[in-house]
Each structure stands twice: as C-alpha cells, then as structure tokens.
C-alpha cells in the first residue's frame, strides 16, 4: 500500500489532512509502489521525447533537463480554490491600480501609504512610463502569485510575480502526462479542466491591444532558442496560434512595429514579451541588448503597440513593496486581503532591522531584488558562521533585505527512492488580466525533492506535480 507507511508529523499534508482528497487517496491505495515507479519512469521518458525540457549550459555542453515530475497529484477542494481565486483576483486588481497610480498621479505616495523613495528610487521604476495610458489600466496581464500553507493549512501569499512569470507550460503538460499515465487515477474524479489557457491569454492580449487594430496581430517575443524557458515560449505560441518572434524579426518604422515575413513587413499590434524590461529596447534601456527591438518604446508610448506585461511592473512585485500589499489592497479597494501575507519585517525601517537582528536564528532573511531562491538565509537551519555573514550583510545594506518567520510549508506525498515520503510544496496560480481577471484552475505545484528542503525552485532541486482542483 502506497500510503500505509506515510506519515507527515508537524506539517499540514495536502493529501492526508484534506478531506476532499479522499477519493484520490483511495485510488492511489489501489496501486502498488512498483506500478507507480514503472509509470513514473515511462512518464519521465516521455517528457524527454516530447522535449519538455529546459537547457542548462555548461562551458562546452548544452544539457537538456526535464523539470522532475512527481506523479502523485496535489489536490485542492472547491472551497479552497474559491479562496485562492478571489484572493488572487483581488491582489491583481490592487497591483494594477498601484501601477496605474505610480505612473500617473502617485496619489499613494502623496498620501504617505507607500514611502516615495521606495518606489521612485527603485531600479525597476521606469520614468518612461509616466503618463502612458494603458487599455483597462492593465499592467500585469499575466501574474504568478506564489502561495504557501502554514501548519494549520491556512494559505499565505509569499510573493507576487508581476514581470514575466513562468511555469504555466508545465501545469498543462503535467496534466496531459497524468491523463496518459494514470487514467485510472483520474477516472471518475471531477477535475476542473485547464485547456483554455491559450485561448484566455490570446483573448486578453487582443482586448488590451491598441484600439485602432480591428483584428490585432499578436506575437510572442522570445529571447530565442538558447533561453532556458524556450520550451514555454514555444508552448504558449502554439497554444495561442501566434508567431513566435525574436527581436531580430521585428522592426520599428514611423513608430509602428512590423515583423519581417516572406512577403515583406507585416504589422504587429500586441506583443506578449518574455524578455525583461532591460533588454526590450536598446534605445531606452540596455544599449548592448541584441535581444530587443530598437524603437519599441517609442511605438509603445505612442500607443501603437501593446506589451504584456507592461513595462515597469517590476516595481510592484518587489519583496519590500510586498510587505505593504495588505495596506495597498485596503487603500485602493477598501477591502481586507482575502489571502494574507506572511508577516514581513522591512529592514529598511529601524524597528524592522532591530527585530530581524534580534531574532536572526528564527527568521528567514531574503534580499528584496533576487529571484529564484537565491541569497536566502534560513535562520533555524543556518550555521553560526552563516548567521554572522547574514548579520554583516544586513548591517551593510539593510534596505536590501526583508525578514519573515520560518513557515513550515505544507507537504505532499512524493515518490522518492522507492518509497513515498512527505516533501514540501508551494503553489503558483496564474492569473490572466485583460478587461477582467481569469485564473487557470490550480496552477504550478512546485515540490522540494530534497528531504527537509524548503526551496522549491527548479534551479535548486525542485520538481513539480499536477494540481487538481475538484469540482
């Protein structure tokens, strides 16, 4: 029996502590561990054959790796999903209102809710966006909200990803994989389908295209096939049925964007860009960027092309701004946050720094500008020397850090080394916003495959699971 020896003391377990997961538990119990292994191996081979890989470059080799896929799904009940869905919609609304305000009247700064220097001095604040009006005020067309669960099972937002969040291709490919490898597990379980992501994304991109375009031409702009997320760019272009372009395929003439085709230049109205702001237009941002399109910002500012996500959203998904999100939600929407934040201490503030230094061994300290799980110090697991180094970094540049209590992330049964054991998971739902916001049911469940590890990032030993939202 797969789960007969499974215990996860001290953590909330997504499978054994959730009543709604009972039907899935029963079906799993009918499988032998050998069968589970065989099917997992077949699924892994299929991922390689399908090329669902990201490429890791060393000095001389390019190695295709798969994102490790765990075959035991993570299950969310309808009420749980309702809280996440409404909570994320609320958060995305607040983020868009915040960005519209920051790049127009800056009311929130004048009212003293957010410190002006935090925003105006931010590396991702783009003065070029000042006064630029966007259709529906949508800046964050695609948002990935990282959510974790505490020991009591309550959801907490860990991070907003409002620039170019990735991972949605794995959500959909994982589901396809599960349906092929475990038809018996899925049979008779009412799952919310996730096949409409491409249609929803295309609809949002068309809605937010410049209004002069009756039938907007949409493209996906990728840094190219050497980018580690290229598979996802391919996936999304396919799902939307739009051209997958690189910077060298585009040209700006008279503040209009065109792509180079076999019959000459063809107009482009909406761009889903998977290139960071810095590389988008060498005329405005990094002059050495060969990935972008010279003149793109001129066309954008003139309202002749739309970009998703908008330029300058990085100022809103910063870990320091994150600490203000409950206040931002109340300020713009007059509502309490449906999904609470993790309690966060801002080291830029004297009391936050003092508290952090006093409780270093029980807190998680994170640099505000980093992504991918880098630069994090987990107090309870750090050595004396590591804590000392962390203290030095904090004192040298306090504004670069926040601290949070160490949350015991929930666990999910995971197939490792011949048995099923608890591993920590998080959840990244994907929200698409055009005129309004839509969430893909479920999202990316990332799992820390190393025993005891809390870091789920794929660059640091993380894998993924299929996420099932039950009807």
């Amino acid at each position, binding site marked *: 029996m797969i789960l007969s020896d499974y215990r996860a003391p001290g953590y909330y377990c997504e499978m054994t502590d959730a009543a709604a997961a009972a039907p899935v538990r029963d079906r799993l119990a009918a499988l032998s561990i050998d069968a589970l292994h065989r099917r997992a191996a077949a699924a892994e081979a299929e991922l*390689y*054959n*399908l*090329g669902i890989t990201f490429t890791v470059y060393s000095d001389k080799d390019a190695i295709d790796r798969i994102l490790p896929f765990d075959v035991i799904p993570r299950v969310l009940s309808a009420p749980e999903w309702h809280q996440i869905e409404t909570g994320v919609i609320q958060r995305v609304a607040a983020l868009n209102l915040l960005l519209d305000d920051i790049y127009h009247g800056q009311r929130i700064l004048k009212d003293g809710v957010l410190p002006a220097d935090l925003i105006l001095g931010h590396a991702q604040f783009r003065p070029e966006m000042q006064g630029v009006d966007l259709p529906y005020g949508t800046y964050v067309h695609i948002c990935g909200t990282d959510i974790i669960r505490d020991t009591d099972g309550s959801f907490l937002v860990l991070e907003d990803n409002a620039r170019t969040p990735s991972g949605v291709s794995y959500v959909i490919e994982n589901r396809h994989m599960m349906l092929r490898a475990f038809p018996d597990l899925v049979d008779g379980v009412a799952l919310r389908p996730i096949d409409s992501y491409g249609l929803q994304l295309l609809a949002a991109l068309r809605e937010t295209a410049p209004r002069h375009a009756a*039938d907007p*031409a949409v493209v996906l702009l990728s840094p190219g*096939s050497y980018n580690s997320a*290229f598979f996802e760019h*391919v996936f999304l*272009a*396919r799902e939307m*049925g*739009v*051209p*997958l*372009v*690189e910077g*060298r*395929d585009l040209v700006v003439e008279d503040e209009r964007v065109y*792509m*180079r*085709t*076999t*019959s*000459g230049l*063809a107009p482009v109205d909406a761009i889903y860009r998977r290139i960071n702001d810095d590389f988008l237009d060498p005329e405005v941002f990094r002059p050495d960027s060969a990935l972008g399109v010279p003149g793109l910002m001129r066309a954008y500012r003139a309202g002749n092309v739309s970009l998703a996500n908008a330029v300058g959203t990085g100022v809103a998904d910063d870990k320091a701004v994150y600490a203000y999100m409950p206040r931002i939600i109340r300020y713009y929407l007059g509502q309490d946050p449906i999904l609470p934040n993790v309690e966060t201490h801002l080291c830029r503030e004297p009391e936050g720094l003092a508290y952090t230094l006093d409780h270093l061994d029980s807190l998680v300290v994170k640099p505000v500008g980093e992504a991918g799980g880098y630069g994090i110090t987990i107090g309870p697991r750090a050595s004396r020397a590591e804590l000392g180094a962390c203290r030095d970094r904090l004192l040298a540049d306090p504004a670069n850090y926040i601290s949070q209590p160490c949350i015991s992330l929930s666990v999910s049964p995971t197939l490792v080394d011949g048995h099923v054991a608890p591993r920590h998971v998080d959840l990244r739902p994907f929200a698409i916003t055009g005129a309004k916001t839509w969430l893909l049911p479920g999202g990316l469940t990332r799992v820390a495959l190393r025993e005891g590890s809390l870091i789920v990032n794929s660059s640091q030993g993380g894998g993924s699971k299929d996420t099932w939202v039950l009807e």
Partner: protein
Amino acid sequence: MNDTLLARSADALFWLARYVERAEDLARILDVNDTFSRDRTGGQNWLSIVQLHAEEEAFFARHSIASAANVLGFYVVDPTNPSSIASAARAARENARTLRPLISTEMWVQLNMFHTRMAALGPADLAPGRLSPLFAWIKEACQLHTGITEGTFYRDQGWYFYQLGRYLERADQTTRLLDIKYHVLLPDPRDHGSPIDVSQWNALLRSAAGYHAYRRLHATGITPRQVAGFLLLNRRFPRSVYLCVREAELLLAELKARYGLRRGNEAAEQLDGLRALLSGVGIGEILVQGLHEFLDLVQQRLNLLGEALGTGFFGYAPRPAAEPSSPFPVSPSGPPAPVQ
C-alpha cells in the same frame, strides 16, 4: 494574419528539410561506398568520400589516414564535423525546435528522438557487422520523418519552403552520388564495361533506391551511360536531378501565385535556367563534355538558387556579385543557415 510567415521561419523550414534529406542521402552514399570497398583493397575509396565533400583539411586535422573507421566516424558520428549525419540530425532538430509553433508535435518528437539516438552513437556502433543495419535505420528514420510530415504538416506557405528545401538538397545530393562514380568508377576510361564496373553501378542504383525502376526502363542491362542518364535526366524517378528541379519549379510558381509573393523572381529564373540546362542536353553529350564538369555546373547553379531563395524570402542580404561558388560545400557558402 495566418497567411503570414516569418522570413526566419521560412528559412528554418527550408533548412529543416535540407538537413533531413542530407542525413538520408549521406547514409546512402556511405552505404554504397561501404559496399564498394568490399570489392577493392586499399583505402582510396574512403578518401574519395572526403574529396567529394572537399573536406580534406578538416578531416586530416582529426585523422592521419582515410581508413574506413576514420571516414565513417567523421561522417556518421563526429559531432565536431558539421557535415556528419549526427550534426545534420542535430541541426534538423534545432531548426525544428524553433519551428514548433508551425510543425506538428509528431514531427518534433520523432526528430527529437532521432537526434537523441544519433548523438548517443559512438565508434563501436560503426563496426563492420553493425554498419548496414545502422544505415538502414538512419534511412528509415528520415523516411519516417517524411511520412509524418506528409500526413501531419499543415500545407500553407511553410510547407512550400519545406518542400523546396527537400528537392533542392536531393538534387544536390544525387549529383554527389553520381560524382562518386566519377572519382571511383571511371578514373580510367579503359575500365569501362568490366564486370566489376557493372556490379558497382548496380550498387549505386540500389543506394538511390532506383534499381527496380531502372530495370523496368532498361531491361537489357546496366551501362554507366544509362545509369548516369537515369539519375540525372529521368522524368519520373523521384531522386533524379531533373525531377527534383522540375518539382521545385512548380512549387515555387504555385507558392508565389497562391500567396501573392512578389519576391523570388531571381529564384524562379534560376530554376528556369536549371531546368533548361537539364532538358536541353542528352546523356551522351554530357559524357562527352565530362560528367564531373556537368555535375559541377549543376551544383553551382543549385547554390545560386539557394542564395536567390535566401535573398528573396529569408531576409538574407544580397551577396556581392561575381564571387565564385565552391561546388561542394556541405554548408552553403552564402549567409549562414539558422542552425549550422
């Protein structure tokens, strides 16, 4: 919107088809050479493969002698040789990777697996007893690709560029296959007609899968003249140079008309000239003037055609005029392909 095709994608489709065709045809050339070498002593047979590709410099930078093992290693599995079958499989796969929004998943998966298996091959897989099955498998993998493409690839503009790449490459490779004849089989006109000659022409026909078709056409026997004529000028044999050029001409005309492409007139003129060259001459005249010289000319014209397609449709900058083209580069001497 859906009628547009990125210039870069057209280029990549053209090259995807070329690389798969190249892998198949190189397997055919090596297979036939392997068959020949059993009849002869010494290693000059294998050197001719290197000479055929004009790659003596690259080859002898890696190997001291043109032994069977060295030449086969160089052309089948060597990942550092851009002309190897393994490199062609990799390049086809890399082009396919950028083309995934346009091609079918089946096309992609098969090319991905073909590349993975090719990349895993080593010198041990080229041992004499394994060689023939290996070439059979490579040919079959390429034909599988062709079949999947026929049955799944959406036939819009991109399909035309893919087909153009296939026929252009196949025409080029058939001229090379014949050129082995020049290097190996007719060094001395007095050898002509000897028993060994016939068996080798026989093998040549079989390597081009043309043996039975040829037999139906020329029931009386196999002569070098008729075999050369068959591979060059036959109107119905799918690997003949004439048929490939004619197909390409029809494809380009249909592509331009159906999609209203005003560009590519130079390519059309090149094709017109090539077809005229192949229609206006008999095999007897070609042999009198020199088979090698004729093949050389056809290859040069095919190179110019590739360049004309590049400047007409793929966004290549026009090349400065009058630079002579080398007849045998495996990679084009013009602007680089998307993935080399």
